[in-house]
């Protein structure tokens, strides 16, 4: 355990190693580690932002979906209402048409009746004339009044 030149030798050795480490080991390693740290920080930030974007997009999509649903419901509602309205209108129109047709038919019937009545009336007059004529010509020679009878029959 003698103190000797080894002391100085060891000091110099140490300083040389420190110098080497200072110049060639530490800076590249630390540089790379910092670079990685930065990369990770950027990556995390981006992931964060992406997460937020995603959330935003999801919320937007949900909003749009809701809106669309509402619109659809509105449209369906409107359509239903319109359909009811149309049915109602159709019903009314049908009723009106029916009424109109009925009225027309009744009018026609009445007209027919009236016409028939008129005809009948005129016929009755004719028939009564013909009856009277017939009664008046009973004793009339049938042969002599053949023409008349035939005429009457034809008129019936």
């Amino acid at each position, binding site marked *: *355990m003698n*103190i000797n030149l080894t*002391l100085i*030798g*060891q000091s110099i050795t140490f300083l040389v190693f420190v110098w080497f*480490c200072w110049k060639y*080991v530490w800076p590249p*390693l*630390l540089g*790379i580690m910092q670079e990685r740290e930065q990369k990770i920080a950027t990556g995390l930030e981006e992931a964060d932002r992406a997460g937020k974007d995603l959330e935003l997009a999801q919320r937007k999509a949900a909003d749009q979906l809701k809106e669309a649903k509402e619109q659809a419901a509105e449209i369906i509602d409107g359509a239903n209402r319109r359909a009811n309205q149309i049915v109602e209108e159709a019903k009314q129109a049908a009723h009106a048409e029916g009424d109109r047709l009925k009225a027309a038919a009744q009018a026609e019937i009445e007209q027919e009746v009236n016409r028939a009545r008129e005809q009948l009336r005129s016929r009755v007059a004719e028939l009564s004339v013909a009856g009277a004529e017939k009664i008046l010509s009973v004793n009339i020679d049938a042969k002599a009044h053949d023409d008349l009878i035939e005429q009457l029959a034809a008129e019936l």
Partner: protein
Amino acid sequence: MAGEAQTATDYIQHHLQNMAYGKLPAGYTRADGTVLSESTWTMAHSYQEAADMGFWAVHVDTLGWSIALGLLFCFVFRIASSRATSGVPRGLQSFVEMVVSFIDKLVKEVFPYRNSMVAPMALTIFVWVFLMNLMDLVPVDWLPMAAAGISGNDHLFFKVVPTTDPNGTMGIAIAVFAMLIFFSIREKGLLGYIKELTLHPFHTGRWYFDMLLVPFNFTLEVISLLAKPVSLGLRLFGNLYAGEMIFILIAIVFGVGALGFIGAGVMQFGWAVFHVLVITLQAFVFMVLTTVYMGMAHEREDETAHD
């Protein structure tokens, strides 16, 4: 155990002797009886020779292992840093990055100033000292016996743990001390630093009182300044030396019969497990204290000096 019949004392002593290469003076009688005609640089062949070399000797094993382990550190970390990518780290890169980010965080906490050299220095100290300490976990006889086998010299001194050599730990501590002084002067200026050493901790604000306090302050500051490298180096040395010593003692027990072998095995394992903590902790403490000292060098006390 190297050599023939060896006593336990011999064994321990042999394990605690570094491989010294140094200068022996002219007229010195060597261990084998030869007398040197002129001063020579040579390997020490005995404890006495190693001691007689005085300051002009180098512990080849301490320096060799220090440099080898330091190169290992530089090599591995350099490879990792040159191949590193900012993608997903794998294997060596992720291990190295784990160590680097651990040190970086710690240094940022302890050392809040701008100095690009402190963190790399902390990294170097932590890994290097850890690696040197780690040599303590290699069973005490393996490497010395291998070295003896390779060199063909049964008595070869070979100590594999550089941090159990006070030269090894104090050498680093002295370098840290030099950095401390260098950064202190760079940050505060020579005058500012002298002021800090002479006007602290006691100052009154009146210059004639302060002049009287200068010797007192200076003594205190210099003692606290010198205590830093000494405590730094000796703490590491003391812990590792004690650990090594216990490993050596356990190794002796291996030779004492079957029961001794089993007992030593258990003890060896237990102490090694405990020692894993010690070597990591000591490397960590050395690093943290160095960083704290660097922080002190950058600390400006102008505000307190002028009030």
